[in-house]
């Protein structure tokens, strides 16, 4: 039975280990989305990013998203890891591994997870600029459903 797994962690993400943990012998492919810190945002030079999270809820929400993706696209296991803390340029802030017996669904599912993650997982980042300034990065307002 393939699983959904989510982790919020201050530790660097190891892609080989993540792929290994996600793949089962039935899978023919895994797709790894690897989000990294860029050196600029809208032209302003960035020196680092500080990520913070509502860790417990973020893990729960990422696991829900992974469940939704597995159900919708019929993939194998999906594992999502999000970093917190201060990250340098080029460091991975988020990694999403989708295992699948076949490849088409892995692409759909991976895309679904990163789009949903950006829209509803309680994680925030503050950009540190080369000039010493810092600023919260504007984000998405999660959709809140009215009660039934």
């Amino acid at each position: 039975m393939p699983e959904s797994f989510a982790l919020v962690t201050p530790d660097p993400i190891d892609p080989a280990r993540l792929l290994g943990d996600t793949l089962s012998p039935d899978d023919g492919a895994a797709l790894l989305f690897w989000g990294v810190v860029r050196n600029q945002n809208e032209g302003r030079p960035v020196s680092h990013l500080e990520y913070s999270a509502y860790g417990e809820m973020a893990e729960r929400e990422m696991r829900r998203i992974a469940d939704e993706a597995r159900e919708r696209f019929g993939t194998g296991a999906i594992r999502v890891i999000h970093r917190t803390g201060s990250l340098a340029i080029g460091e991975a802030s988020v990694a999403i591994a989708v295992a699948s017996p076949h490849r088409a669904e892995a692409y759909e599912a991976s895309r679904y997870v990163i789009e949903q993650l950006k829209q509803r997982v309680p994680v925030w980042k503050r950009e540190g600029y080369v000039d010493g300034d810092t600023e919260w990065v504007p984000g998405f307002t999660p959709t809140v459903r009215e009660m039934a």
Partner: protein
Amino acid sequence: MYALPHSRTYALPLMIIRSLFFASYRDMAGADELALELPAGARVADLVGRLRSSGGLSRMPESPVVAVNMDYAPMGTELRDGDEVAFIPPVAGG
């Protein structure tokens, strides 16, 4: 059946609600979290009103996104004693 004594002037029992603040809301609150007493039956909107009534959190929107016990919840959600209400500015993961 006995009619129980009843009056509108009786004090309502109080609930303890824990509020969590993140990112820019944390900057406004000047704290990660805050425990408040609210009367039984209070809703999220009442908690928001109380928090916005003074200090840095007066800059918080009138209807901020909140999660009650880690589920996104609308302003009308009725609170219960011990609930954890997280105030969630626009998210920017990834």
